[in-house]
């Protein structure tokens, strides 16, 4: 079984998901969740079978001439991400089975979600940078569909568009970076690129590649100042938010940084850039989470903070920091997936996500409460959960930074204090205290809604207490992949009395203090925010887009003024200018040309054609003009037939006939034929026509003399039957040798047809308006 089979199957099934949903409306979530669950065990098996150090690599050509292949690269890092995506994906599908049951279009929801999951799996398994980019963009597109799932709401649509614009802009930058990497290393294959650290870092393009890579990663992973799309993205359904925040989408940026860290990392630019953006994002996210009241918004801002922490850790770039980053990645995925699903359940069963309206849910929703408390403890970094290990490792990494940057440690502690406080506030306000004033009387959720969060929360505990298998089979290979050396680590819950433990104690102490005095501090912070933070990134971004649209509209109105003659003139002049230039500058120019004997009937047809075209120019009747153009076309067809191009002749005849019919029908819609053009403009048109016709003639004459690629017609001649299984070479070229061109042509034809169709429709709408 090939590595990509699970991905291909999930892609395929995603399109069948609506049918499955129609057939089994109640069990669709369960049925579809089988696929990611099986993929989870398959990849785990493949990785263990391959051993801890080695890499599984499979590849086949897509566009081999350009070095673009479907390559799949399974190492520790890909495995870690694959396991997260498939495990959380399984639980999300089960959860969605209940959560989405009330909504219309839920069949489509499964399609988008499966497609999203497969894209993310493809992204982390890609062994070729171009295929990685394709999957990267697919995650952007599918998350656009998911965030905008409630498309009848204006906020959903604008949030979806915003996230798409930002991540796609970043994707474009990433593509440019990939092309530059190819310029330097000569390969798109990740396995090949990873061996060329020296070449990349000494190249003059290094800094440009770095900036482009950062642009891609930071937009996808919602780093400050691109963070604003992530809180808005909660407009999507809760399962989507849970998936987007925990294992997919935002983690893609972290993945690409980690993936390229062995070759791009280690330099001062890398460290400085990542550290500055990481630490800012970490702090901003944690700070703004404190003043939110919407459960999903709180979680969204803590995600931003966590992503900042991850970028910071990758930027510190030591063995300790990467260890901390890998563990924290898992920690965050577990608690965030769990908490977002629970926020969705609470929303579903109480009708609100507002902290001020909720309260005392521990009595009515005991399972939900237990799962949420475990996840929140992990988020706050309290023992005995894996969040504690994560936080200890982060502190350890920060303490051990070469040339100790105390500032980073301080900011980290402050951010963690905020995290402890917000976890406490979340837990207290939602689950304890007075029963809230909710629109719906709260009730415990069914199994499918609490199973996923409970499993993830339980993992937070299990992985912390029994970390041996996890550490040696998943975490160590991942760290080894990022550090490009073999590293074996052991995860311990208890690190002994040391500086790090002291820092943890301080963090928890201050966090609890902040929690206790929350009623004084948080209103105060809100007041500060409302006075100081007048600048809204989201609003500024919308303004930027609006301004951009305004300018493009002006530009389009200028270039495409709506006068068809002007368009034709531009096309003719530009084409003739370029072709004339090239014709004159190509090698030799032999005017003397041996025409050979021309049969009298061909001569007769040519004379007839010339006469017909003169008539078309001089006549003042549209019908005469069209019919005489038809005569020219038929003449060409007959000449084709004389010289043995039967295919072309038949096609030409059919086309001529249809064009004449079309023209005659269109005339009906045109205004009366009148001579509007002045004498000067007629002379100008005449000159343009002569130049254009002249270049076509010159091109034909010269084309016959130039023999740049002598083998191509012989190649077709020899291989048409052997490779293409056909004796009609024209047809074999069309459908086999140059089939890609034909695909392009039929797409263009379709677009033209749709264009004509909508142009005629436009007219109808106008006339309808007039009636009103």
């Amino acid at each position, binding site marked *: 079984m090939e590595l990509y089979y699970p991905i291909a199957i999930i892609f395929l099934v995603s399109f069948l998901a609506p049918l499955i949903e129609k057939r089994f409306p109640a069990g669709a979530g369960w049925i579809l969740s089988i696929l990611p669950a099986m993929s989870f065990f398959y990849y785990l098996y493949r990785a263990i079978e391959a051993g801890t150090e080695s890499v599984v690599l499979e590849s*086949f*050509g*897509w*566009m*081999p001439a350009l070095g673009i292949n479907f390559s799949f690269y399974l190492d520790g890092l890909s495995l870690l991400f694959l396991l997260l995506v498939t495990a959380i994906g399984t639980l999300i599908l089960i959860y969605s089975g209940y959560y989405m049951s009330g909504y219309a279009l839920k069949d489509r929801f499964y399609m988008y979600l499966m497609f999203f999951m497969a894209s993310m799996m493809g992204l982390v398994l890609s062994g070729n940078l171009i295929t990685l980019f394709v999957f990267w963009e697919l995650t952007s597109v599918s998350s656009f569909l998911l965030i905008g799932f409630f498309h009848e709401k204006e906020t959903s649509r604008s949030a979806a568009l915003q996230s798409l614009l930002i991540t796609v802009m970043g994707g474009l930058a990433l593509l440019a970076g990939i092309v530059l990497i190819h310029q330097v290393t000569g390969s798109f294959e990740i396995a090949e690129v990873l061996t060329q650290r020296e070449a990349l870092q000494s190249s003059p393009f290094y800094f440009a590649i770095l900036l482009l890579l950062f642009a891609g990663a930071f937009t996808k992973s919602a780093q400050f100042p691109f963070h604003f799309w992530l809180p808005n993205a909660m407009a999507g359904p809760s399962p989507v938010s849970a998936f987007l925040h925990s294992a997919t989408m935002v983690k893609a940026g972290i993945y690409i940084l980690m993936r390229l860290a062995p070759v791009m990392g280690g330099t001062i630019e890398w460290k400085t850039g990542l550290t500055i953006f990481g630490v800012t994002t970490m702090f901003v996210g944690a700070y703004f989470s404190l003043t939110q009241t919407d459960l999903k918004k709180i979680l969204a801002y803590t995600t931003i903070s966590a992503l900042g922490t991850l970028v910071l850790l990758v930027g510190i770039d030591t063995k300790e920091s990467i260890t901390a980053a890998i563990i924290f990645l898992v920690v965050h995925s577990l608690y965030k997936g769990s908490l977002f699903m629970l926020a969705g359940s609470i929303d579903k069963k109480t009708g609100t996500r507002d902290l001020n309206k909720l309260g005392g849910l521990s009595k009515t929703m005991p399972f939900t409460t237990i799962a949420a408390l475990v996840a929140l403890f992990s988020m706050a970094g309290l023992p005995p959960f894996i969040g504690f290990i994560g936080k200890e490792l982060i502190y350890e990494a920060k303490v051990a930074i070469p040339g100790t940057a105390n500032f980073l440690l301080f900011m980290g502690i402050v951010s963690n204090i905020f995290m402890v406080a917000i976890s406490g506030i979340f837990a207290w306000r939602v689950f304890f205290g007075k029963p809230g004033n909710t629109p719906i009387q709260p009730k415990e959720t069914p199994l499918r809604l609490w199973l996923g969060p409970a499993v993830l929360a339980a993992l937070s505990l299990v992985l912390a207490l029994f970390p041996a298998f996890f550490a040696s089979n998943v975490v160590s290979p991942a760290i080894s992949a990022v550090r490009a050396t073999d590293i074996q680590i052991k995860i311990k819950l208890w690190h002994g009395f040391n500086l790090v433990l002291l820092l943890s104690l301080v963090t928890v102490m201050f966090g609890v203090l902040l929690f206790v005095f929350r009623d004084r501090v948080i209103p105060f912070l809100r007041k500060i925010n409302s006075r100081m933070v007048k600048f809204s990134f989201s609003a500024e971004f919308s303004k930027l887009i609006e301004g951009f649209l305004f300018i493009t509209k002006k530009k389009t109105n200028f270039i495409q003024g709506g006068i068809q003659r002007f368009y034709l003139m531009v096309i003719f002049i530009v084409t003739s200018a370029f072709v004339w230039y090239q014709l004159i500058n190509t090698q030799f120019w032999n005017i003397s040309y041996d025409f050979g004997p021309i049969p009298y009937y061909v001569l007769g047809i040519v004379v007839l054609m010339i006469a017909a075209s003169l008539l078309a120019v001089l006549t003042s009747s549209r019908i005469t003009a069209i019919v005489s153009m038809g005569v020219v076309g038929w003449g060409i067809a007959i000449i084709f037939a004389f010289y043995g191009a*039967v*295919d072309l002749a*038949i*096609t030409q005849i*059919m*086309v001529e*006939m*249809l064009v004449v*019919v*079309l023209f005659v*029908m*269109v005339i009906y*819609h045109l205004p009366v034929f009148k001579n509007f053009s002045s004498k000067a403009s007629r002379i100008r048109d005449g000159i343009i026509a002569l130049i254009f016709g002249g270049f076509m003639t010159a091109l034909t004459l010269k084309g016959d003399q130039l023999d740049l690629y002598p083998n191509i017609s012989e190649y077709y001649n020899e291989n048409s039957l052997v*490779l*293409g*299984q*056909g*004796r*009609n070479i*024209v*047809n*074999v070229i*069309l*459908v*086999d040798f140059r*089939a*890609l061109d*034909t*695909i392009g042509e*039929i*797409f263009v*034809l*379709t677009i*033209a*047809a*749709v264009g*004509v*169709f909508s*142009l*005629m*429709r436009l007219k*109808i709408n106008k006339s309808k308006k007039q009636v009103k």
Partner: protein
Amino acid sequence: MNSQILHIAARIIKPLFVLTSLVVLYRGHNMPGGGFIGGLLAASGYIFYMLAYDVKSTLKKMWIKPFELMAWGLLMAFASGFAGLFHATPFLTGRWISVFGIKLGSPTLFDVGVYLTVIGVLLTIMVAILDKEKKWD
């Protein structure tokens, strides 16, 4: 147009053209013909019928709308490209099998796709222009 001669001619010519187009399509790989010419022929038959009668009655006789024809054609041509991919060769690489002595391959499917697209495109344009009542949808 209300001409009895035209009506009778159209009734005969339409199936004749469609039949011819299928023959042209089938033999296209070895002799003059192919999807493009076939598509033009078949579309001409329908267009003639459309001119003789009207758009509405022509569309009524078709069990598939021109718009859908375009979509199916594009899908078929595009899908035929994947045959190559599944054999670890580039997109659109031809694959052939022999069924009872008749050679069938992904380019055959591709040609049928071109055939359908061309019919769909021409009929869509024609319907858009010819329909004076503007009631097609």
